[in-house]
């Protein structure tokens, strides 16, 4: 996939999005850029955000630059998928998108360092980036709680929700998961969603924890 096609593919969602993510993760220019920007924080990162804390999607990512790149790509993906227009990513070109990933990765790192070390850094964080630092990184405890909640759902439900929120269309979901029609997939997705909502409402402690 060409760089110029990545942004559109991410916006399109589904299988194209997954292909675009795979292309993005091997972009050495982005990785190099993040690595260079984080070089001066290396000691502090090792001290305050050790490899054991660099968990993404349940797996440890030893390389700090790659870890923050993943977090940044995740933020970008969320923005592209967010239907509320005020949070959408406005960039149109690949360099703009790459710049956003690098900036976000660096500011996520700085924000986390500030939070953990309780020390200021020389670089100030722009206001529009501040929202990222409210929840912080997904630590192991938070991961376990969320995983426990999702495990209440069946495998099929998790799959259908993953596909839907990964930008697959109902037709594609129906085809992949063996539903007769798109409507059948839509109904099933709704049931799964409601099921998750019910599980959450039954356990206010989890809701509080997620807040």
């Amino acid at each position: 996939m060409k760089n110029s096609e990545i942004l559109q593919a991410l916006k399109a969602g589904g299988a194209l999005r997954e292909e675009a993510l795979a292309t993005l993760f091997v972009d050495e220019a982005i990785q190099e850029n993040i690595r260079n920007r984080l070089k001066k924080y290396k000691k502090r990162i090792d001290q305050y955000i050790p490899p054991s804390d660099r968990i993404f999607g349940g797996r440890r990512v030893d390389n700090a630059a790659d870890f923050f790149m993943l977090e940044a790509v995740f933020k970008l993906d969320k923005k592209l998928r967010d239907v509320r227009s005020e949070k959408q990513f406005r960039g149109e070109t690949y360099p703009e998108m790459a710049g956003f990933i690098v900036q976000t990765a660096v500011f996520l790192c700085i924000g986390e360092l500030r939070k953990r070390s309780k020390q200021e850094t020389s670089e100030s964080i722009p206001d529009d980036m501040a929202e990222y630092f409210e929840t912080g990184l997904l630590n192991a405890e938070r991961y376990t709680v969320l995983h426990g909640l999702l495990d209440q759902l069946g495998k099929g439900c998790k799959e259908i929700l993953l596909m839907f929120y990964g930008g697959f269309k109902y037709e594609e979901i129906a085809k992949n998961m063996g539903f007769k029609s798109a409507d059948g997939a839509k109904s099933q997705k709704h049931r799964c969603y409601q099921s998750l909502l019910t599980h959450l409402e039954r356990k206010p402690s989890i809701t509080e924890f997620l807040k």
Partner: protein
Amino acid sequence: MENWTAEQIERYLDGEMSPPEQHSFEAQLNQNPDLRDALDNHLEVRTALDLLLREKMAEIYWDTQLSSVKVSQQRTAPETWLQILWKKLRTFSLFPASEQPRYVLSGLAMATFCLIAWFGLARYTQSYLSDSALLQAVYVPQNAVGTLGGEPTSFDAGFKAFNKKDYAAAIPIFETIPATDLKYPATGFYLGHAYLATGNYEAAIAAFERIIAVPDSPFAQNAAWNQVLAMLGAGKTQDAAFKKRLQQIANNPNNGYAKDAQALQHQLHHWLRSIFL
């Protein structure tokens, strides 16, 4: 009474409402705190769902990492021996690049050492193993022993001059003695030494040859040895006559100069002479 449903919230968050429906819903959202609370609950669901997306994204990331490793392995694996040879020729270096400055310095130091050693050995060979150096080391100046008795003659003056190492004065006196004279073997012998001492090697060789030819001459062994030395001084070490004479002396255990001849042979065959002379 609630005038909204969970499905509506879900559709609102998923972007499935039409613009008028969305506008109406947002108007309710601004006025109804219960609706906002319900929306918050749905947002918590989204937070939980983010975990699924993260896991999927991580899966894609780790797949790319594995693919990168595989691609890099594939890039290096299928090199043919010709490619490897070509690469080695292109990047040939005796020493690793990082070690080169150290090896250059070591090489220079070694070259300097070899140069100094070369000149040192050449100098040693010239001083101790050249023909003239060997001659000086081996040659023992002769003293003329007395006279043949009777009245002092002009020859006695020749012997005196010889013993005073005034060879220039002794030579013309000794040269006047004919071969038929009884004193000839002695004067001829000292004449040879006088020539040898003054560096007139060709004349010394001839003078010693004449003494060697005298039957039963008591000076024959000494004359033969000193003729070898005269030849050494004349630089005739490669001549057959020199080698034959030296060999004869060395091989004759009864010859008083046999050991000197063997030692001289040994030094003439020294490996340094074959390099530097």
